């Protein structure tokens, strides 16, 4: 059930209605039933996968909590132990906890890897050895990366004693399978989501209509803008036909398409939660207003970024071998190298993983590493920039900030072309053509009309993107637009909702001929 299917809209309407009709204590069980129904509709087989993940997380987290409890009780009962004895006891418990955690990680990351990457490995093996092994018919459960990450995060939090364990299997099952975020995130943390997920919620007009407004806004971006742009992006990046200035067009159009598609989907997910009084983490913070790529990655797909930081970057960079490596490098290779080695290595691993996570193809690996390279280079250049800024007193000046924003958008868009073109060599060739065969006339001579979009399409796109830009600027300068509309007479607020609905229904790119549209991110 895609967010953009009639079935989902109907399912959502039924779920929301039922949610406020049942007694408060039945609300979360209802959501669990709805989430399993949602997943079952995609394929009954998927349920098996999510049940294995849920059961393993449940069992292991209970075990981890028991071991921590055991440790606390033992230490409380044996206050007379020496420091060394305490240390030894703690180390023993930690070893057992680590074994359990590792088993759980192996199982869940293993399922994820096997289902998503088997064919990638076979293809790569064939390419390297010239053999012709056939692909394997694999079930790739919808949204498996998202729920696996979310669940693994919970187990690690329990392991770290940062999160009290959930002893109710069904509550944990709802956390794993909560339907709005199942397909494409955001990746919630248990500690945050559980605060509102299980509590009873009374119908509140403001929260409900804010949720609906956000859902409609999401559909507007997704159906009116992203899906309408799709044919042009597909045409531009299908092969090497459109080189030179077209590559710039492809970069910008894909930047808008991906933004509208991904933020639209997230707005629908978060809006569904809001309409039920459930708070999910934000996933975007106006990413295209970032002034450099590091900042961009703090503002785009935020929940993925923080997940990688907390569960991969930190553990990798502060593990003992890494600390020793850092110390050794400082002593033998000098301060300059020693200071960098941890950060370079750990972020290399993070970006490699991020690339692989985005897709089972070398394009994504290169994409991840390109991001890493750019971030490292800008990290190295930071002192230089600092001097430059101080010398010319540019910081805070609007034209210079605008330049930084445009530069960042172009940079991330260029890197992103690796996940757009067919393969890595083609991407390099096309990016090169940007400099060697740039002919700006394609923007003015009507060539863009030959990309599957006619003048009317471009008109809708231009107006729609102007609206998106205006809303973003408003958020940047003043704050949330919903709050501002809510302060106005009620007819204005509801009128805006109605306008969104009508525009989406009439100008949406859906229906016959458009059925192939899928959220770009549900592959991940």
């Amino acid at each position: 059930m895609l967010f953009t299917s009639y079935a989902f809209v109907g399912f959502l309407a039924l779920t929301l209605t039922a949610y406020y009709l049942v007694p408060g204590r039945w609300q979360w069980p209802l959501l669990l039933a709805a989430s399993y129904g949602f997943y079952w509709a995609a394929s009954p087989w998927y349920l098996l996968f999510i049940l294995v993940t849920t059961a393993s997380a449940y069992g292991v987290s209970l075990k981890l909590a028991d071991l921590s409890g055991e440790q606390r009780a033992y230490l409380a009962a044996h206050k007379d132990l020496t420091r060394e004895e305490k240390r030894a006891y703690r180390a023993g418990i930690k070893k057992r906890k680590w074994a359990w955690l590792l088993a759980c990680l192996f199982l869940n990351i293993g399922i994820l890897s096997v289902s998503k990457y088997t064919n990638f490995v076979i293809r790569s093996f064939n390419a390297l050895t010239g053999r012709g092994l056939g692909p394997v018919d694999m079930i790739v459960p919808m949204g498996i990366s998202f729920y696996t990450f979310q669940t693994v995060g919970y187990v690690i939090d329990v392991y770290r004693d940062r999160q009290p364990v959930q002893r109710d299997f069904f509550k944990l099952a709802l956390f794993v399978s909560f339907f709005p975020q199942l397909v494409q995130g955001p990746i919630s943390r248990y500690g945050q989501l559980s605060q509102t997920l299980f509590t009873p919620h009374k119908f509140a007009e403001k929260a409900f209509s804010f949720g609906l407004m956000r859902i409609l806004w999401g559909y507007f971006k997704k159906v009116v803008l992203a899906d309408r742009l799709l044919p042009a992006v597909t045409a531009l990046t299908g092969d090497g036909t459109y080189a030179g200035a077209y590559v710039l067009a492809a970069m910008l159009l894909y930047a808008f398409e991906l933004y509208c598609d991904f933020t639209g989907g997230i707005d629908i997910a978060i809006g569904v939660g809001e309409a039920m009084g459930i708070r999910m983490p934000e996933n975007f913070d106006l990413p295209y207003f970032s002034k450099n790529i590091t900042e961009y990655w703090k503002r785009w797909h935020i929940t993925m970024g923080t997940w990688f930081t907390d569960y991969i970057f930190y553990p990798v960079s502060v593990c003992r071998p890494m600390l020793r490596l850092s110390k050794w490098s400082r002593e033998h290779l000098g301060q300059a190298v020693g200071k960098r080695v941890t950060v370079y290595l750990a972020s290399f691993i993070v970006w490699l993983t991020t690339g692989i996570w985005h897709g089972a193809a070398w394009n994504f690996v290169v994409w991840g590493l390109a991001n890493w390279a750019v971030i490292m280079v800008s990290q190295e250049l930071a002192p230089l920039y600092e001097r430059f800024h101080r010398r010319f007193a540019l910081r805070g000046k609007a034209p210079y900030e605008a330049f930084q924003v445009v530069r960042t958008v172009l940079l991330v868009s260029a890197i992103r072309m690796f996940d757009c073109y067919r393969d890595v060599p083609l991407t390099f060739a096309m990016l090169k053509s940007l400099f060697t065969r740039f002919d700006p006339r394609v923007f003015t001579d009507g060539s863009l009309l030959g990309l599957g979009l006619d003048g009317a399409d471009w008109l809708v796109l231009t107006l729609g993107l102007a609206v998106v830009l205006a809303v973003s600027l408003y958020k940047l300068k003043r704050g949330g637009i919903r709050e501002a509309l809510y302060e106005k007479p009620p007819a204005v607020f509801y009128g805006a909702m109605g306008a969104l609905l009508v525009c989406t229904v009439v100008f949406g790119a859906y229906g016959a001929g458009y059925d192939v549209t899928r959220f770009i991110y549900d592959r991940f």
Partner: protein
Amino acid sequence: MKGRRWPAALGVALGVLGILYLAQRLLVPKYQTGVVEGSMVAEYYRERVDHDLIFIGDCEVYENFSPVTLWEDYGISSYIRGSAQQLPWQSYYLLEDTLRHETPKVVVYNVQALRFSRPQSEAYNRMTIDGMRWGPAKVRCILASMTEDEHFIEYLFPLLRYHDRWGELTGDDVEHLFAKDPVTHAGYYMRADVKPQTGFPAPQALADYTFGDMPMDYLGRMADLCREKGVELILIKAPIEYPYWYDQWDGQAAAFAAEQGLTYLNLIPLRQEIGLDMTRDTYDAGLHLNVRGAEKLAAWFGGWLLERIDLPDRRGEPAYDAVWEEKTALYDAMKQQQYAEIEQYGELVTFGANAVEG
């Protein structure tokens, strides 16, 4: 909800519904010019008198029989419930729908579409079904007809299907927002131009000549329904050679009729007797008859029918006279207009493919 907010919410909701309703009226195709087949099914509901004879089927009925001739020659009040590529299950449900409004004495079904054993084309489905009045027949017709990518809700709210037409709206869409002009003559689609039949590709051998279960099931249901309502069902095959009507198909149609005690009439071998001249009586090289051919066929068929079944001559009954006089006038006027266009331009300009806007 706070006391003063809900009236605004309700007001906006009603306003949005109103706008969506208007948008739907505007965006649904009007089928007034050029491709008029999409208007046929709905036009039936404007009829003001009952019919003793109803034709059911695809283009092989609505382009080949002229009800006005049946009226003028025999006083038979007839109507053609046909539409483009009307599939057997659609014919069945249109029959069911028709029999809810009136009970004719005879129903004539053209068997050509039995060769289709499953749903075919979304576009043709829409042209046939959109015009049906809502009721159990329409619901079941949609469910039987939908191709894989179709959604019931798009029939319920056609705006969802046609919303994309905002880029190609024409004057017709505004002019006929609420009211449409009649495009047929008791269901008959008139063409006066001539394009002689020259020859057809040789028939290809098929792997299997057996009609599918689905069409035969619905044919059986047509027979049952007619029996139940006391209506005489007659099966025909229009006198058109292409798409090729295989002997094996003919045999199955005849066998079904014999088994059910129905009459089956294949008109292809009777063309000479009917007086059809396929160098002059067709407008598209033999696929369909033109108005000359349709009048000849109607005249012959009316005579054939009256030899077997006693159909009342309604001429002289004021209600019928009024309606049919009006129809005849419209029919004659359109015929004159078409002949005039052909005379002036050598082809039709405000009918058929040339008239499609844009």
